[in-house]
């Protein structure tokens, strides 16, 4: 099950769920990505925009391991913060020195974990997207940022709000390789956590007054 793979690989794998049909989590971009890869069946998986995982979920553990083993010369550092009704996402998309200069399409994706609520194995439902095409020279970084206006559903459960950033070959259809990704889910997206808003700083390692 995809949620099990996510639990087992919490730092090197980020699934994004596109809910179709009559799902309450449906968004038009779920169909856009469905068509981008020419998917015709469900459930279905594409790994890194490159490896067609098809519907044979028995192979997905091996598929994930295969992609994890592919070296990359890209890095992404990111941060995300909820400010009132905005999710502010910043990312530094880089190519290591000695790597290859790349044109990439950077995707900023907002997700909502544990949604819809009718199945415990639903994770990281797609909510919003922003894309920008950039050229990243070898040994250099490009800084990008975007602010999303969150919907009431997301604002009501900020602990489940997340942001994913990935850099993908800028093609009009798949396969299109994703070279690197980064993500933050939950409390890390909030400035008002660990008791900050209540004045209880016991959960903070350092407080400067």
């Amino acid at each position, binding site marked *: 099950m*995809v949620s099990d*793979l996510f639990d087992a*690989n919490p*730092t*090197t*794998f*980020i*699934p*994004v*769920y*596109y*809910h*179709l*049909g*009559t*799902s309450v989590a449906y968004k038009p971009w*779920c169909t856009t*990505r*469905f068509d981008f*890869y020419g*998917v015709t069946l*469900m*459930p*279905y*998986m*594409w*790994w*890194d*925009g490159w490896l067609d*995982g098809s519907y044979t979920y028995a192979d*997905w553990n091996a598929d*994930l391991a295969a*992609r*994890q083993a*592919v*070296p*990359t*010369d*890209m*890095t*992404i550092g990111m941060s995300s913060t909820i400010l009132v009704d905005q999710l502010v996402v910043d990312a530094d998309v880089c190519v*290591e*020195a*000695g*790597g290859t200069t790349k044109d990439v399409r950077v995707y900023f994706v907002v997700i909502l974990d544990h949604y819809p609520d009718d199945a415990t194995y639903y994770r990281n439902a797609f909510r919003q997207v922003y894309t920008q095409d950039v050229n990243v020279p070898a040994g250099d970084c490009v800084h990008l940022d975007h602010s999303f206006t969150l919907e009431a559903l997301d604002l009501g459960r900020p602990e489940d709000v997340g942001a*994913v950033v*990935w850099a993908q070959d800028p093609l009009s259809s798949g396969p299109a390789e*994703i070279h*690197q*990704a*980064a*993500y933050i889910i939950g409390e890390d997206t909030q400035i008002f956590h660990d008791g900050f808003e209540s004045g209880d700083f016991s959960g903070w390692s350092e407080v400067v007054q």
Partner: protein
Amino acid sequence: MRRRGDDLRGSRVLAGLTVALALAAALPAAAAERTVVGEYWTQPG
């Protein structure tokens, strides 16, 4: 005090450093750890 052979040892050290620097420059960049994206489609059963 300089001794006979210092120049030779110095040149060998310099040559060794040059080779080490050349090898370092020829090595590929250390590969970054990859975070894999799984785009997954599903619908109500």
